[in-house]
C-alpha cells in the first residue's frame, strides 16, 4: 500500500500549494500549510513500513512533525491575533508597512 499512499500525499500536497498560492486570509493560509504538513507525514509513515520498520524512524519523524506543526500553529495564530489588532483584519494583502 505504499504507492497509493505516496500518490495520495502528492495530491494533498498539491491542494495545499494551491491554497497557499490563492488565498488571502491568514487563517486559511495556515489551514493550507497544515494540509501540506499532513501530506509530508503520510509520506514518512508510508516509508517507515518499507525501510527498516523495526527502527521506527519514519514514525518517530511523523510524531516530531506533528509537534512542529503544533508549535507553528501556536505562533501563527498569535501572529494573526496581533496582525488583526494592528491592521483590523486578517487579509495578508493589508500588511504593507515595509512597502517602499
Amino acid at each position: 500500500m505504499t504507492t497509493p499512499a505516496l500518490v495520495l500525499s502528492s495530491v494533498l500536497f498539491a491542494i495545499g500549494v494551491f491554497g497557499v498560492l490563492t488565498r488571502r486570509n491568514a487563517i486559511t493560509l495556515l489551514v493550507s500549510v497544515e494540509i501540506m504538513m499532513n501530506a509530508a507525514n503520510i509520506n514518512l509513515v508510508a516509508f517507515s513500513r518499507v525501510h527498516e520498520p523495526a527502527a521506527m524512524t519514519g514514525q518517530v519523524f511523523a510524531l516530531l512533525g506533528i509537534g512542529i506543526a503544533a508549535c507553528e500553529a501556536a505562533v501563527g495564530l498569535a501572529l494573526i491575533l496581533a496582525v488583526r489588532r494592528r491592521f483590523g483584519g486578517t487579509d495578508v494583502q493589508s500588511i504593507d508597512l515595509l512597502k517602499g
Partner: protein
Amino acid sequence: MSLQDSLFAGFGLIAVVGALYAVITRSLLRAIVALGAFLTAVAGEFYLLSADFVAVVQIFVYVGGILVLMLFALMLSASGVRHPLAAIDRPGLGAVLAYAIGGGLVWASWTAGTFVPAELPEDAVGALGRALLGTQLGPFELIGVILLASVIAALSIARREQP
C-alpha cells in the same frame, strides 16, 4: 480489493474532498470544519499504514489541539463568520503551479518502483517508545524545548500592549 484497500481508498477520498473544500470555501468556519474531517481521515490512513500510535497522536494533537486553537483564533478575530472571505486570488496561476507540482510528484511516486512492506515487530508501540527514548532521544528532547519556546513566543506576541 480487500477491506483494507477499500478503507484506504475511502479515507483517501474523504481527505482529498475535505482538503479541497477547506481550500476553496468562502466561509472560514466551514474551512476549519472541513480541515477537521481531513485530519480525521488522515488519522485513519495512519492506522491503515500500521502506525496506530501516530494515528492516536494525530487525533489528540491535531483534532483536539490545533483545530480548537484555530476555532479560538477565528472567534477572537471574528472575521470569518459573518463576512465571507475574499474570493480566490489568481486561481489560474495557482492551479497551474499546483498542477505542475502535484503532477510531478504523482509521476515520481508512480514510477518509483514497487516497495515491499517488511514485517513490523511484534510489539510495535513498544518499539516506537524505545526508539523515541533511545536512538532518537536528542530530537525528542529538542522538540520539548521548541514547544516551550513557541508557547512563550505566542504569549508575548499576542499580549496586549500596555498603553
